[in-house]
């Protein structure tokens, strides 16, 4: 008995050791660009993580199936399950960054916590990190954060737009004076990011901001909503993720807080968030940046080249859903980054360092997007050494009980407010981490 077990144990351990050695053996085929995929299909955030990952992977498959890769460079990819946990994310990053002939092209962390951890490593590893619509707001400053690309929006931008929206409803930002705004947020770096800006704005417009954190995973919110019922804020911003959103809406119903006055960030504005609440979610609003729900040319292609060939990653039904589309757009950004870089470095597998240049010189206008089949699903993006965000615009959409209805007004983050904050925060980071900022002017000059 004992002997058997010792053998079993030994076997298990050796297996473990060999296993952990696997990733060191990188495949050495030429003409392949490796895309790492950090995803979470399990745990409390699986309902949101899964459709995003499916969209991301489907697009990569599409590029191979339809265009035969990026200018002939085949795409390879590998998924790694982070479970939204930072330490797991770091392990995945370390595992995947070296794969493929040229190493990982670009990472989407899909978690603000993981973003924070990887940002530190990016300086030595020289692999860009795209955090499309999440991540750390101050990483817009490309002079300090050379490797971060919060493309298309940050949480400071998001919060800013929400304030603008309700300001508009009230008939002018000055009308916000004395109004009560509550922020119900996921108690993590993700949820805490917007606070800085909301407080800044509060100083400007004199509204009263109350902070209501919800602990991971966010299924226990009774007390939070009792407080909401007590203070009856004029507006409520929801900064949740995963099950937290659905629960929040249910509790809102339970305490009779009007959904019309609830505004979610773009990560609290997808189908999985409203469905659990059923009819209760009717009237609930959320930001939606470049990719609302719906079908377009790219979806048709996905159907034609991926799903109809039985290559679909997820169920057909989810193609066109909000988070799925976000996945598509995210993948598109990675691919376009590589494309752009290929113009400079040639049509071959590229290093992360080279992709960084591509991402820093993205110029996707409406025409280009339309050509890619993303007309109406993505906003123009043009990045630069100084600005790694490349434009931050969004709309508000409202859940009518069975679909998202997108409003007409387009909002744009007010850089007057945000830029100084970004500079300050980035400077603090640079000083803390002893990073010497780049001099963009000089780099441009030398490039010419």
């Amino acid at each position, binding site marked *: 008995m004992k002997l058997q077990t010792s053998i079993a144990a030994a076997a298990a351990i050796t297996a473990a050791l060999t296993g952990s050695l696997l990733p060191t053996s990188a495949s050495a085929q030429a003409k392949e660009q490796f895309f790492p995929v950090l995803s979470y*299909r*399990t*745990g*409390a955030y*699986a*309902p949101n993580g*899964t459709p995003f990952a499916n969209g991301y992977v489907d697009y990569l498959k599409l590029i191979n199936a339809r265009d035969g890769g990026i200018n002939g460079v085949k795409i390879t990819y590998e998924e790694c399950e982070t479970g939204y946990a930072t330490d797991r994310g770091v392990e995945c990053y370390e595992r995947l960054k070296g794969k493929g002939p040229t190493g990982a092209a670009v990472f989407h962390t899909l978690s603000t916590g993981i973003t924070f951890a990887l940002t530190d490593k990016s300086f030595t590893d020289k692999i860009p990190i795209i955090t499309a619509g999440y991540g750390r707001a101050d990483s817009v400053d490309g002079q300090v954060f050379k490797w971060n690309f919060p493309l298309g929006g940050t949480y400071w931008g998001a919060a800013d737009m929400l304030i603008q929206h309700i300001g508009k409803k009230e008939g002018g930002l000055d009308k916000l004076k004395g109004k009560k705004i509550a922020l119900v947020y996921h*108690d993590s770096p993700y949820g*805490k990011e917007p*606070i800085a800006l909301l407080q800044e704005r509060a100083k400007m417009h004199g509204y009263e901001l109350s*902070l*209501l*954190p*919800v*602990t991971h*995973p*966010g*299924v*226990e919110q*009774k*007390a*939070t909503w*009792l*407080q909401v*019922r*007590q203070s009856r804020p004029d507006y409520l911003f929801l900064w949740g993720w995963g*099950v937290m959103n*659905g*629960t929040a809406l*249910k509790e809102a*119903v*339970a*305490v*009779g807080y009007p959904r019309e006055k609830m505004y979610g960030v773009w990560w609290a504005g997808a189908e*999985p968030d409203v*469905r*659990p*609440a*059923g*009819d*209760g979610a009717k009237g609930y609003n959320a930001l939606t940046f470049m990719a609302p729900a719906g079908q377009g040319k790219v979806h048709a292609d996905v159907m034609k080249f991926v799903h109809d060939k039985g290559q679909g990653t997820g169920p057909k039904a989810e193609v066109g859903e909000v988070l799925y589309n976000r996945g598509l757009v995210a993948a598109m950004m990675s691919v376009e980054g590589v494309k752009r870089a290929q113009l400079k470095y040639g049509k071959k597998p590229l290093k992360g360092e080279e992709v960084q240049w591509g991402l820093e010189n993205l110029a996707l206008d409406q025409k280009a997007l339309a050509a890619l089949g993303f007309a109406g699903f993505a906003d123009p993006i043009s990045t630069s050494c100084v600005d790694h965000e490349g434009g931050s615009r969004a709309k508000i959409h409202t859940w009518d009980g069975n679909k998202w209805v997108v409003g007409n007004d387009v909002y744009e983050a007010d850089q007057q407010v945000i830029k100084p904050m970004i500079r300050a925060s980035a400077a603090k980071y640079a000083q803390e981490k002893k990073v010497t900022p780049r001099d963009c002017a000089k780099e441009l000059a030398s490039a010419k």
Partner: protein
Amino acid sequence: MAARKNGPVIALGVVLAAGLAAPLLTGSAPGFYLEVLIGGLMAGVLYSLVALGFVLIFKASGVFNFAQGAMVLFAALALARLAEWLPGWIGIPAGFPALALAFVLATGIMIVLAWVVERVVLRPLVAQDPVALLMATLGVTFFLDGFGQTIWGSDVYKIDLGISKEPTMILQSMFEGGILVSKEDLVATVIATLLVLMLALFFQKTATGRALRAVADDHQAAQSIGIPLNRIWVIVWAVAGFVALVAGMVWGSKLGVQFSLAQLALKALPVVILGGFTSIPGAIIGGLVIGVGEKMAEVFLGPPLVKMWDLAGGGIENWFAYVLALLFLMVRPEGLFGEKHIDRV
């Protein structure tokens, strides 16, 4: 012994009572105060449901079953998914009939689970020290979490008991704005009460129930009744499984069935500490105390704390229950209703 210990207990009680009364005295709207109280009680009912499972198993087998939470998740998943699939399989009308059948099947599944646990885990570990058994149930927890999601899926699933989610107002006449009560919570309370009554009957009236009580007292006695110990364990784990199913149903219908259900079970620990490991009424009262206590603390104690020390938000309910339990342990280790045990040389 007892005499020396009652002093602090009373003191603690007084402090809690004072804390309970404080908001009213400091002039919060009585209507809202009542709402918080009710809200706390409702949350407490849910805690009690899980705590019940703990107590049942601890009473009969002396095992501190960490897996109770995982069992709740597993049962809820089974119920939700079966209710979803059955119509497709055997063409039984969706909605209540499917749900009812699913409930029966899920019960069966929990019984099988109990049997497996007894066979695979408990029997080999019989007469190990309690900590080892606790670890074993931790193992069971992990296994169930993985297994459950593998066969039932890891998305959010609905259990629709067909209760409207819209709140109702009562006592409008007495308080302005009235007092808001959620029908769901009321139903949950009713179900919990029924369950407790069922258990009470089971333990008082049936032979098996009496046998279980005997085991709780001492194992030889149980032997003499003529029911083999390990069958008793299967039974008690099955009962606990059933309790988990009910808890899962109530919770699932409220919050949606999802992985994170398992986490709420941690809340049941302070409950059983408070109520005493071996007392069913203790589990219920403990649950209510914790529920009310933490909601009160969060709503009325949180904001002032945040102001005082400029904290980044409240959220003291995360630890309140545990610290309360800890204080209680220091003054009365055996809990409110638990039997006290003095170890001799």
